[in-house]
């Protein structure tokens, strides 16, 4: 794992978001069909991570929503949080990972191909906000644990079957 000598690892759970500054790193575990979206500002060594479960908040059937759960609201909320921490939205870049299909079988349910839909929704939302995607590791059928270091701006990706990579 990438870990600076003095930094801490900030953990982000499913349908949650958070931000970190160098020398800390930010991490989320066990991404399946969910997508981990990292937004970072190289000039400030600051980064945020949101662990998205669903493509769009219009899918919610509740009155109040957890913004971090959906691609559209989660990315907006993360941009706002990074803005408050002093980064310019125009300097933000993105790295994304996840959106796998863990089980292959036929079902009419839309929820069974949620991974690709999540990836698509994340890309749409980033495009709307003019945030370029610098690197991605999406799709496939493996779970991923990801950790981003705002110092090196590298995203470390661990899978069970394909080992470790860095993008």
């Amino acid at each position: 794992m990438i870990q600076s000598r003095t930094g801490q690892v900030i953990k982000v759970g499913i349908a949650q978001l958070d931000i970190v500054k160098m020398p800390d790193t930010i991490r989320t575990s066990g991404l399946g069909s969910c997508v981990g979206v990292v937004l970072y500002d190289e000039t400030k060594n600051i980064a945020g991570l949101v662990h998205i479960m669903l493509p769009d908040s219009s899918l919610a059937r509740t009155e109040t929503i957890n913004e971090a759960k959906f691609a559209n609201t989660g990315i907006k909320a993360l941009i706002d949080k990074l803005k408050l921490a002093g980064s310019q939205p125009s300097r933000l870049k993105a790295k994304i990972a996840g959106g796998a299909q863990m089980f292959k079988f036929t079902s009419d349910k839309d929820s069974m191909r949620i991974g690709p839909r999540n990836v698509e929704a994340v890309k749409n939302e980033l495009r709307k906000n003019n945030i370029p995607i610098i690197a991605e590791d999406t799709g496939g059928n493996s779970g991923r644990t990801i950790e981003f270091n705002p110092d090196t701006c590298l995203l470390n990706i661990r899978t069970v079957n394909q080992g470790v990579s860095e993008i």
Partner: protein
Amino acid sequence: MNEIQKITSLHLDILKEIGNIGAAHAATALSSLLARKIDMQVPKVEMVSFEEMMELAGGAETVVVGIFLRIEGDSEGSMFFILPIEQADRFIQSLINDDQFSFSDGKLTELGVSAMQELGNILSGSYLSALSDFTGMKLYPTVPGLSVDMFGAIISTGLIEISEVSDQVIVINTSIFEEGFDNRNEVHGHFFLLPDPDSFTSIFKALGVS
């Protein structure tokens, strides 16, 4: 107001009984398949956050063998049979008479994988047919899928439907143990039944409770 918030302790007892009947049949099937004694714990029915769900089988990153199927019909939901790698290895080694077989390294064989799939088929089939007999509901399971991966990545597949309605999930969790091993407190496998949010009404109605 969603249905999940309206559930009372009577409802929880009913769900516990469902877990009890289903898992008892599955444990019996497993026991006779392997000719070993399999014990089960009293089922737990819990309302947990997604984060807490990850802790029910050792954390989001723990590598497990997972069997997953969707239940369709009168009541819908997701069902998982989760085994720690070492336990799945022991079961399959014994089923196919190959003590080299393992899910954890390159020793996966086609025979072993299909034995695991078949085991998943038999166990989920006996769990669900017991459930169907008990409630009188028609339940149609999909063919189970198999994945050897991080628990978080596997279980989140079953949280998608629920996540549209809630940030919490009602899980019917039954743990099984294999007798004859030193550590009796160690859980050797889990059945997780996650009814879809809209399914609770039909389950309770089928059993005459509103």
